[in-house]
């Protein structure tokens, strides 16, 4: 089988799910004839028609709300944010309406909001955001953020089939940079399960999305240059989080480094740290440390962006400190 990029994997999932279930339809800005700003939905309109591939006005709250209404009635909407940064315009709708509808009204709201996320692409402060921390705090939502092409496909299929709303963040730096052979058949990856991206014994790096690759690169370097054996856990799902996998790796290596691309304060690392503290404190031989973006909006100029975002040397440096602790 041919190799498939992360972006193509997402498109495959959309095609397959739309074929499988006539209730699945997609909405978003410029996703029809144009195929989306990143061409993720290219070919969908030709195949499934304007009825199921809906170009929307520029109104994120409007079409997220519309997705919710359609979802109540048994449809399975998949909504694209042109860039995930614009999800902020639908923040009220997602956190107050969508997330609570099952709990407060026993109204199922099975829908997916997806879109290009993340930095390392010179996108500047409004085309590079990582929105996961803004929603981690909202019970009722699920959040996934795949790092590999096969997970991109398998998690999107799970997200579309899920009975509850799922925020599906796709990392645009990975869109065309990674490829992989897709597993045959109906490839589904369960939401809420982490993946061991690399096994190791001296230190655990817990991470997700693009920094999985940075961490793997660092792990390689640490192994080769410093003889340090690093385990890399790719969370894949952030809500729910795979606590078991986290505690297991902590118990195995006793040293934890959390890496995320998002800014530091209030980022996902805090929650992971708190959970490990509560459930595996005894097993820690060193403080849990984090490598993250600095606490500023992501600037656009390459030297600035590179400085603000986590890089391989950062991971190597902190990992060495942790192992030496």
């Amino acid at each position: 089988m041919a190799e498939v990029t992360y972006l193509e994997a997402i498109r495959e999932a959309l095609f397959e799910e739309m074929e499988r279930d006539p209730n699945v339809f997609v909405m978003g800005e410029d996703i029809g004839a144009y195929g989306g700003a990143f061409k993720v939905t290219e070919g969908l309109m030709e195949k499934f028609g304007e009825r199921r591939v809906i170009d929307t006005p520029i109104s994120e709250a409007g079409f997220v709300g519309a997705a919710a209404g359609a979802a109540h009635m048994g449809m399975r909407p998949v909504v694209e944010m042109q860039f995930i940064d614009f999800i902020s315009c639908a923040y009220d709708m997602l956190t107050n309406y969508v997330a609570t509808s099952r709990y407060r009204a026993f109204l199922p709201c099975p829908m997916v909001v997806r879109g290009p996320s993340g930095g390392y692409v010179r996108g500047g402060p409004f085309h590079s955001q990582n929105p996961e921390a803004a929603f981690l705090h909202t019970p009722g939502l699920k959040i996934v953020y795949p790092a590999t092409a096969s997970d991109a496909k398998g998690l999107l299929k799970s997200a579309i089939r899920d009975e509850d709303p799922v925020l599906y963040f796709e990392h645009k730096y990975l869109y065309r940079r990674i490829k992989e052979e897709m597993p045959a058949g109906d490839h589904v990856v369960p939401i809420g399960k982490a993946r061991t991206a690399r096994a190791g014994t001296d230190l655990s790096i817990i991470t997700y999305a693009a920094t999985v690759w940075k961490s793997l690169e660092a792990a390689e370097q640490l192994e080769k240059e410093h003889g340090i054996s690093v385990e890399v856990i790719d969370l894949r799902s952030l809500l729910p989080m795979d606590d078991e996998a986290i505690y297991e790796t902590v118990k195995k290596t006793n040293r934890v480094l959390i890496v995320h691309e998002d800014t530091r304060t209030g980022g996902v690392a805090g929650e992971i740290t708190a959970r490990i503290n509560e459930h595996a404190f005894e097993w820690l031989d060193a403080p849990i440390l984090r490598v993250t973006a600095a606490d500023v909006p992501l600037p656009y100029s390459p030297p600035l962006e590179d400085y603000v975002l986590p890089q391989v040397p950062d991971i190597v440096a902190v990992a060495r400190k942790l192992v030496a602790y």
Partner: protein
Amino acid sequence: MASRASSGSKAKRAAAPHEPNRSRPGDAQVMARPSDALDIEQKLQLYYYMRLTRALEERLVNLYRQTKVIGGLFRSLGQEADAVGSAFALDRSKGDFLSPLIRNLGSMLVQGARPLEIIRQYMAKADSPTRGRELNIHFGDLERGFIGQISHLGDMVPVMAGVTLSFKLRGESRVGLVYVGDGATSTGAFHEGINFAAVQKCPLVVVVENNGYAYSTPLSKQTAARELKDKALAYGIPGIRADGNDVLATYDVTKEAVDRARRGEGVTLIELMTYRRKGHAEHDNQSYVPEGEIERWLRENDPLDRYTAQLSATDGVHPDALRAIDERVQQEIDAATDLAEQSAMPEPTDALTGIYADPPVADPLWYRESGAAVTEHERPAGWGVYEKANG
């Protein structure tokens, strides 16, 4: 219809800040009205729902004064016609759907909500429609075709755009109706939702209930638009204004919009002129209302009075027939109150269920031995009373 509905006796009262858009008896003769087709049973149903709305809210006031209602109490006194008449224009047999706002208890009753549900809901009982999770009339039922609002104003417009989009996508012959207040028209959600629905030609009717105020804010501080129906032009859809306190006029204008939607002709915006005779919620003393305004609406423009007179004059309904309905309403409410009072409060641990389909129960707080962890003295002193004071 637009011109009929918007001709009113404007000159009658001088400088009233909020003027009704009153339909006159003669208006009915101008052309065939959908309500001409209503039989007497249906006309008495309209009366029943209006009376039920009013009497039920009055009962809730009693319960509120006895501190049996948890949280605030919202009234639709003087607005019963607009909620009832518009909802009555939907076809329940076809699976039509609505989303009420806080003044639209009447529309929910038309759609099948029962007084027992409403009272239990206000009392936050375990067997209330939301099992004590949500307030007052914030609940829905997909079967009966209404969907519960959330507090954030405007948000139900996009949601109903989506509900009706699904009707269109599936080729179903169903129509949706969403209510917003004059105040909610200022929200971004209203704008985005109605625009989306208009572009998609969703089978949706948007009823803007213009009751003159948003909490304490008069319309003049809400928008510089002369009429709210003018907002329709921004979306390329028809906008119609009608007398919201004339239940048949309300029915007529909505019925035509519903038919239009069912024919696939898209969204209509209807502005119903009415008046909020009570405060925003029970605690609000309406100090901001110009003197005499409330009394004038009570005296000259009570929807139940008007409809009673109309039933007698046009349909020859004897007062006894209406009294019998009033009695039936009271009996229903009494029975519902008795039952609701007997209902239990929710079990604390029920709070953890149903946030997701899977897992069905949220993680319990590990330090809670049982639901009994909360002792009685932990209840904030004076809750209920407190909420009332601040709504």
